[in-house]
């Protein structure tokens, strides 16, 4: 991308000094990293249970039932992490993009 390196340096400088940019960066990275931590945290907590307390997942969901707790828990992990994906995409596509567009506009 050699072509665009030189042209916009001053504009980048203006964007960096815009307080809105700092706000964008910090709110975006806070959300992205906390959601990543939530997904990985859930997954590794699940794996720890699998490794050290498998009987929890092997317990029937209610007395005299054949389905075990592990089934809904597993499905819930998949659905939960997908919903978090939706949360991030929604925030980014509305709030962050609007902020980003405003910053770009102001830097012209």
């Amino acid at each position, binding site marked *: 991308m050699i072509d665009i390196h030189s042209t916009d340096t001053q504009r*980048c400088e203006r964007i*960096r000094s815009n307080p809105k940019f700092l706000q964008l960066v910090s709110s975006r990275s806070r959300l992205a990293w906390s959601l990543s931590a939530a997904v990985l945290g859930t997954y590794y907590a699940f794996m720890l249970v699998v490794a050290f307390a498998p009987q929890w997942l*092997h317990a029937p969901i209610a007395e005299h039932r*054949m389905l075990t707790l592990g089934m809904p828990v597993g499905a819930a992990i998949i659905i939960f992490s997908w919903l978090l*994906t939706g949360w991030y995409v929604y925030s*980014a596509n509305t709030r962050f993009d609007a902020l980003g567009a405003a910053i770009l506009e102001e830097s012209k």
Partner: protein
Amino acid sequence: MTLLRKLLLAAAGLLPASVVLAAPALGAVEKQPLNLHAIGMFFVFVLGTLAITWWAARQTKSTSDFYTAGGGITGFQNGLAIAGDYMSAATLLGLSSLVFAKGYDGFIYTIGFFVGWPIITFLMAERLRNLGRYTFADIVSYRLDQNKVRIFAAFGSLTVVCCYLIVQMVGAGQLIKLLFGLDYPVAVVIVGALMLVYVIFGGMIATTWVQIIKAVLLLAGGTTLALMAMSQFGFSYETLADKAVQAHASGWNIMGPGSMLADPINTASMSLGLVFGIAGLPHILMRFFTVPNAKEARKSVFYATGFIGFFFLVVCTLGFAAMVIIGTDPQYYVNGEIGGTLMGGGNMVAMHLAKAVGGNLFFGFLSAVAFATILAVVSGLALAGASAISHDLYATVFKKGKASEKQEMRVTRMATVGLGIIAILLGILFEKMNVAFLVGLTFGIAASTNFPVLIMAMYWKGLTTKGAIIGGFAGLICALVLVILSPAVWVTVLGHAHAIFPYDHPALFSMPLAFLVIVVVSKLDRSVRADKERDAYADQFVRAQTGLGAASASAH
């Protein structure tokens, strides 16, 4: 494909007859009688995709159209295409077979294969789109030495693409022999020839649409199969669980975690390689450049994640349903011995289920979808490989960015033909070889070479050219050496008694090594060039965050 092979490797020895695609057990696979339903339906698919290719060829005017469909794919379409790249015939066949054999353990694996996607959404999708244009080398070379980094990145991409192409071609030949009753070389040549037509004439537009159609067929086929199977249990998971426990040899054990996690290090290494390997596969990364902007890039991973999650749940349902429907029916076992070897090998569970609940016609449909799947993945791979050659090596390094679009397109097409011929020849050459090690190698290299360099280029100010290249090569060599010393090569291919490196997957060791070397070498790099590279991060960061200067969609 990926999933299946990973699974198979992990489950080596656990699954009775390894796999359709990983090939070891396939040597024994009998050629089946011609399956006319399947061939007929596949023929319809080919005609449809060729029509699309013809249409796409008329849309493909510039290099940007060719490499990335001019950035004109919507988030939803791209989501389907990404999901299509990830959900393969092998996912359907391999995961359902794993659940069939192991119950809940198969489900645990499935979850592991899923969790990488949300992470890609949160941390990679928008930066990829904002900083890249045609290949992931665009991002890595953004502030580093263009020549060196592109040569390195093209090398990494091509290694991954070639290994993976061989695996796909061998899998295709075996699967088609099994499902369609065609000869192995015929099958390989058909796959190679169709791939060439799609890519050379239709570029990314055709490749994407082939992938979308296949993803829709696979989702529809899998869901229909699951609904038909569940209707036998009154659509009640409780009834299904009850009958599956009665039918399965392991009984109640299938309902909870069991034996498959006996080797946690191999499991951890495999899941690490899978999750981060995906984020280093050139044909997956390329998908992020086919959408018009970061907004659509994010949407596409959201849709892809939803489709993949849904499909995985469907596939697990199939595995449990098959325990009852297939597992108790002697006609699906060799010599009618229930619990013995399944007809056609351990991976045919979903196919048998299709026959059992949907008859020959539905079986034919699912076989055709499996074939279409391989074709779609192979096309994406060839396109990614060709763009590394033409865009990174030819246009940027060799011509110093002065190649005309025409020249670049011609080189891409020649490179595609070259890759196609290589893929066909190697596919035929490797027919009788155990190619399972290539799976470990593909994902090991993707996770330890492309991924660390890419993520550091996007997130770490301190990265320098030296650090990226030395670190990337350290990961590459480490992954390569560990795979050679692993049981899959050292014992199975080379015939030694014991493997020097006991695990099939190198990522747990080679990936951290790559990161470590990248950091240490970059920190020690005191050159003037390195200082400039660190300074340039500030502007790159602004662009990554705001999309300033990002490549835009072409006019049509």
